[in-house]
């Protein structure tokens, strides 16, 4: 536990280093917020679907969480390249704790991104469905952060090539985002897309956010969303732990 805290603390002390990444990962959802939320919203409303911002914002809030989470593995690759990782590997602490500490630090940064974006959506008119809804929404943000940070760490433990890692994440995260139902209600799309969404972890994050924070009806169900996100988080933590334990420097 001490180790987890120490590495988390380090990440917090370095948070200014993440400034650029934080800004970069917010720029795209902010663009979406303006272009789709304000521009496209009129059409959505006229089609009788209610406020688009109200529909769109919850899914958008987890977007920077996914990206920041996946990219947090980059810190580890950096540490490996520049030697700091070695220093932690010869310390009398378990590798699992080291990995958990890194995951906790990365997840905190990604949640920060989500909170900043939530603030932005509130400014353009998004209103959470209530206090309990907000609490549940926060739980979904937490789980999403865990899942994608653990995923990023697992990838970073398995790969040594920094550029390959970045490319891989981009090619993986983009389709996950666009096909998640963040832009459109999954109930109304053709069956192939709906089936694809079943295998898209991010779709459960979006659905959970929308059903909790947004107060809308769930496409899957809140318990399914929670279960899938928690289950996958555990899976990636275990996988990451195995891969991280095998790192030799």
């Amino acid at each position, binding site marked *: 536990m*001490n*180790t987890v805290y*120490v590495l988390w*603390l*380090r990440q917090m*002390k*370095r948070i200014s*280093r993440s400034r650029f990444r934080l800004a970069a990962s917010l720029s795209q959802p902010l663009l979406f917020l303006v272009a789709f939320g304000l521009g496209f919203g009129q059409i959505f409303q006229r089609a009788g679907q209610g406020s688009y911002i109200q529909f769109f914002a919850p899914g958008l809030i987890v977007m920077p969480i996914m990206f920041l989470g996946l990219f947090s593995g980059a810190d580890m690759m950096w*540490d490996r390249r*520049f*030697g*700091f990782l*070695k*220093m*932690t*590997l*010869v*310390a*009398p*602490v*378990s590798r699992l704790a080291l990995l958990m500490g890194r995951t906790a630090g990365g997840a905190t940064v990604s949640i920060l991104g989500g909170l900043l974006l939530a603030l932005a959506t509130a400014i353009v008119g998004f209103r959470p469905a209530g206090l309990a809804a907000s609490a549940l929404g926060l739980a979904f943000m937490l789980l999403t952060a865990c899942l994608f940070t653990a995923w990023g760490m697992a990838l970073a433990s398995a790969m040594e090539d920094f550029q390959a890692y970045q490319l891989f994440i981009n090619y993986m995260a983009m389709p996950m985002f666009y096909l998640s139902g963040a832009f459109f209600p999954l109930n109304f799309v053709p069956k192939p897309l709906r089936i694809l969404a079943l295998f898209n972890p991010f779709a459960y994050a979006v659905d959970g956010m929308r059903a909790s924070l947004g107060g809308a009806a769930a496409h899957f169900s809140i318990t399914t969303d929670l279960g899938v996100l928690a289950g996958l988080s555990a899976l990636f933590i275990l996988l990451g732990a195995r891969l991280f334990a095998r790192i*030799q*420097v």
Partner: protein
Amino acid sequence: MIRVEHLVKQYGDVKAVSDISFTVAEAEIFAFLGPNGAGKTTTIKMLTTLLRPTAGRVEVDGLDVTAHPDEVRRRFGIVFQDSSTDDELSAYDNMDLHGRLYRMPRGPRAKRIEFLLNLFELWDRRRDSVKQFSGGMKRRLEIARSFLHTPKILFLDEPTLGLDPQTRNLLWSHVQKLNDMERITVFLTTHYMEEAERVAHRIGIIDHGRIVAQGTVSELKARTGTDSLERAFLALTGTTIREEAPAPQLGRIRRWRRRQ
């Protein structure tokens, strides 16, 4: 304190370390010398739980390194050949983070950090982030850090790389002092023969992954009939080259090219 038996490390079909055995006694300063690529760093990585040996056994303070890695880790401090600080953090935070990882209680931790940063003349710069440090200051910080948790054994992989003569002098005086006062065992590598000659109680020479000689400085000199460690070293590691190629110059060039 350190017992190595028939240790082997194979990288693909490169045998970086092939069947070496040696022991280092408690409170001994042992210099592990050898040309570039001889296998020094690889050996240190195996002694410090970073690399799994392909074969052989390593015991540190009576503990098998593969069986009890955490027990072993508690006992040693290390200065790596290349940097391992967090350049975004301040010098103090680097030390503090290390102390916390080794579970040093707050009071003694702060005290020892102050003592060591003063000792290595970094106290005034403790709040600056390490990326603003010169190469020599970074090196001093790493050395100070390796002493922090009062290890029983110190591994120093070319600790004086890139340091000016004043700092090298300072470092070795501190190492000798700590060896004397705290009975720390020291395992070091260096390419400066006069440093090894000055501080080491015993020397091991490795070349092409094999130990070619072991003993005190005077034993090595006597064995090779030379009057300095540098000449003894050249005589010993030169012999292996001459076996490969008749002209020593040619052998040296070949070896140099192989390493590029």
